[in-house]
């Protein structure tokens, strides 16, 4: 039998205590450090503002009395998907530029961390939307983002077109005013010509004629019947 009595237990305790203290302190340090970095990351400002569409969807989903009908929930989910599309586009557009800036040291590490967090969140969000969509209707998850992206584009088109067409009134008012201004100026000029040389009517006539020609050009050039038929023909051939 191995002689247990020969072991000096007290002296053996010293290395064991050493190891214990070493491992314990390392563990404490790492846990505190990790907690601090996590807290710091959490306290960073989020990349995007609050996701209203998501909040609406989930608020409606959790509404109990009365329960929200499916059709509204579907619409809310579509709105949420649309917002997700804008977000993922923003992330994708920003990523390359941000990477370059980070390599050059132009932006801080904080920004990069915020960005990575946003990227991770949006991935989770997309997955979540697909799951929810599939729960409403089989295979909707495959097309919901297509529909959402078209909706986004269509909204943009409509906004721009209505913006531009909205300027029509102002443009028309401006042009009417300008037109009458040109006309009065022209009439005045005509009168002055007449006043100046009432006797030399033939010369004045030719002068006013030339002035009239140039003014006319400003006003209605291309408005003549020949021009009109020309345009008509072009249209016919091209459409």
């Amino acid at each position, binding site marked *: 039998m191995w002689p247990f009595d020969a072991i000096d237990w007290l002296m053996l305790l010293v290395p064991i205590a050493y190891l214990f203290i070493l491992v314990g302190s390392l563990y404490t340090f790492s846990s505190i450090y990790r907690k601090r970095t996590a807290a710091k990351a959490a306290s960073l400002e989020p990349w995007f503002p609050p996701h209203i569409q998501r909040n609406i969807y989930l608020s*409606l989903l959790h509404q109990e009395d009365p329960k929200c009908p499916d059709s509204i929930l579907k*619409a809310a989910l*579509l709105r949420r998907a649309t917002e997700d599309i804008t977000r993922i586009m923003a992330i994708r557009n920003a990523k390359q530029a941000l990477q370059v800036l980070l390599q050059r040291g132009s932006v801080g590490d904080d920004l990069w961390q915020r960005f990575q967090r946003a990227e991770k969140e949006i991935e989770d969000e997309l997955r979540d939307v697909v799951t929810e969509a599939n729960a409403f209707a089989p295979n909707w998850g495959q097309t919901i983002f297509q529909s959402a992206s078209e909706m986004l584009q*269509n909204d943009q088109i409509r906004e*721009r077109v209505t913006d*531009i067409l909205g300027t029509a009134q102002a443009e028309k008012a401006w042009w009417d005013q300008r037109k009458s201004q040109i006309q009065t100026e022209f009439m005045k000029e005509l009168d002055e010509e007449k006043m100046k040389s009432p006797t030399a009517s033939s010369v004045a006539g030719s002068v006013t004629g030339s002035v009239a020609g140039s003014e006319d050009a400003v006003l209605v050039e291309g408005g003549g019947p020949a021009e009109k038929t020309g345009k008509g023909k072009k*249209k016919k051939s091209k459409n």
Partner: protein
Amino acid sequence: MESLDTFTLLPISMDPTTKAITSDTPNSALNNELAHLNALHKNLLAAGTPTGTPPPPVPVNPTRSAQISKLRESGNNEFRKGNHGQAVKLYSLAIDMALGRPSWEPSGLVREEVSGLLSNRAQANMAQQNWAEGAVDAEASVEVKKAGNAKGWWRRGKCLLEMGRLDEADEWVKQGLEFEATEQDLVQLKQEIEKRKGI
């Protein structure tokens, strides 16, 4: 955004009869979003698909396309007959119809239709010497579809020239030539503008 398993409960409620979602708070972003949501909900109900979800972008429901092209055809006919005012009305109807497509239908199709119709309306306005309206229509047409829309570029340039806004016209046509460098009409228009500016 919050993490995946939390969300902010918003103070919204549903009208039990109209099924409209409303909020009592004066939060304009929220109210705006709810208005969008309610509009979309109505559109979805009107679409009447069996699952209650929007159909995939393709294939497109052909009835609206047929109506639009019918309106355009009759507009073209009126234009040829010389009833430019009537043509403008018909084109306007067609434009409203094209813009009124359910928003989940392909946006490329909307671009194509709307730019063509706006360009035609610009033409009809120009034939009546409504240069201001023509210029606005052509601008919108180009905004919707920049490449392959030489007629749109040309028409606004021409309208601006007619209104005597030479600098704008010059700028516009130069921009147009970046997209349509080989278009003969645009090159001619540019020369015309430069001649007028020279005087």
